[in-house]
């Protein structure tokens, strides 16, 4: 899961139902990528993931929470994922 992504890429970690949906614990994608484009990149690769997982999940960049909806609403200068970043998809776990 961990390890350095190839150059000009970032690593995306999948937790809980995101890992179940993609059947993976991580992927690498080309960087830079505006965070507002992250969901459409994922939807292209994993059809249906937006509705099933992404709409209700938390997203972090380098272990910091990022509000994708808020970032997407910005005209410009939203968060951009950089080369070597660790991004994570964290859906709520509700069992116990």
């Amino acid at each position, binding site marked *: 899961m961990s390890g350095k992504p190839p150059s000009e890429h970032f690593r995306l*970690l999948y937790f809980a139902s995101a890992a179940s949906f993609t059947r993976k614990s991580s992927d690498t994608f080309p960087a830079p990528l505006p965070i507002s484009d992250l969901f459409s990149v994922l939807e292209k690769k994993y059809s249906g993931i937006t509705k099933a997982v992404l709409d209700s999940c938390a997203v972090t960049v380098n272990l910091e929470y990022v509000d994708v909806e808020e970032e997407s609403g910005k005209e410009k200068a939203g968060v951009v994922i950089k080369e070597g970043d660790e991004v994570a998809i964290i859906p709520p776990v*509700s069992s116990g």
Partner: protein
Amino acid sequence: MTGIETFGEDVDFIQKASLKMHLSNDAVLRLRAQIASLEGTLADLKTQLQDAEAYYNQITSAKADANGHSQTQPISSYPVPSVNYNEKTFESLVEQLKLPQEDKWGRSWELTSEEHKRYGRQLIIPEIGLTGQLRLKNASVLIVGVGGLGCPAATYLAGAGVGKIGLIDGDTVELSNLHRQLLHTEKWLGLGKVDSAVENLMARNPEIKYITHYYYLDQKLAVETMRKYDLILDCTDRPSTRYLVSDAAVLAGKPMVTASALRTDGQLMVLNNPPKGHDHPGGFCYRCVFPKSPPAETVLSCGEGGILGPVVGVMGVLMAMEALKILSPLPQENEYQYPTEASNDTVPPSLLLYSAYSNPPFRSIKLRGKRKGCPSCSDTATITEESLGSASLDYDAFCASRSPAAPISANRISAKEYSEIRKATGSPHILVDVREKVQFDICHLKGSMNLPYSEISRNPEASIDKLDDTITSDPNIADGVSLYLICRYGNDSQLAANKFKDLSRSRPDAKYDLMGDISGGLRAWRQSVDPNFPEY
């Protein structure tokens, strides 16, 4: 949100036998189990007393012989150990800590000699010390849900000496709970989880006051119930109750620890800490982090998704530790305890992730704190005690947690009907089991083939190709063969049937003829055809 018992009032564990009982066989079974257990404890105590008396009498008579006196009178109770700490020192210490010896509720701010012994190992930890222990003794915690999270959390909090522990759960103990729900044992199968937990906790620490609530948390009672406690632990198991516990704790002005676990993942957060009040905006709440509930059809229970015992166990244990930190915070200026950095900083909002098979297994996410316009905890909150009480706020609708009605597929047959098809000669067919491979490997009907629904929904064309290949490669199967679908409970097979039906337009050449799916799935098969088929 169902099964609400009418015991709206708190019932002390000690009083409950005479106060209330379900007038049902459950009550009889539960009482029998409790009496059997208590009789065993009583017999043990009697033996211990006999031994102790014999030993004491032996010593006193030996002493008397040595002194030449005739003090041979046997004693009938334990000797009271003499108090050997300096009364003055202790009083001045209590004064310095600015703790009342007895507060307005008559609670004592002293430890008994037994408590010094019982809590000795944590008393000498500077983070706890006498102040911390006294705070714990006078604190109360409400544990919502006595399952995989609630059991370890309650165990450590009872062990640590939290004075009052309330337990809420309307569920009964099942065999499939025992691999992770540590307070429950086989003799409690079919009986209430709350009673099972209290008996076990009493055996660990009878000094604690246990309050039992025999129902699932109800939104009408939630805020009122929480007001009676200092801290809330969310040990529930579904999205709707997670939002309810968070909303109610904010309204009741109580801090809360929430944790969850599924499969090999766990999450932990401390919410509404410090609590929202007149003079403080309060900490963030569950809605600040997860404003939208995941779609109901993607939410799995432990029964559906599975859970590893140590994963949920570690989350429950971490909850207990966060609870201790909240209930006995590090004092800022206290000569008896060294100040640490943490005591001076406010804890940054964070979400702890545990992912058992990842490397590293723990990750701490830095959160943003309160969400602007949060309907629960912001200045413009719209969720009120009234909206909870009047049930105008519908948690099930918000989480759509009622099972979504699957679109009706044209052909469903019962397990019984399908068993007739299997028996009839000259009715060749294919049975496709759409459960995940790991479940198919545990048990399946003879001759069935595995094609998980997750694959069918992800790549339907490839699934049809796979079926066609199977039919082509087997000379015993003719084109146009009948196809039946089955799963664990009859939900996924129906979704798969609908998927195949939708695709029949684009793939009219498929080599099978979809006849339908088996209503109720393998559970129905076990119930109405083969009772020996494994239940897992």
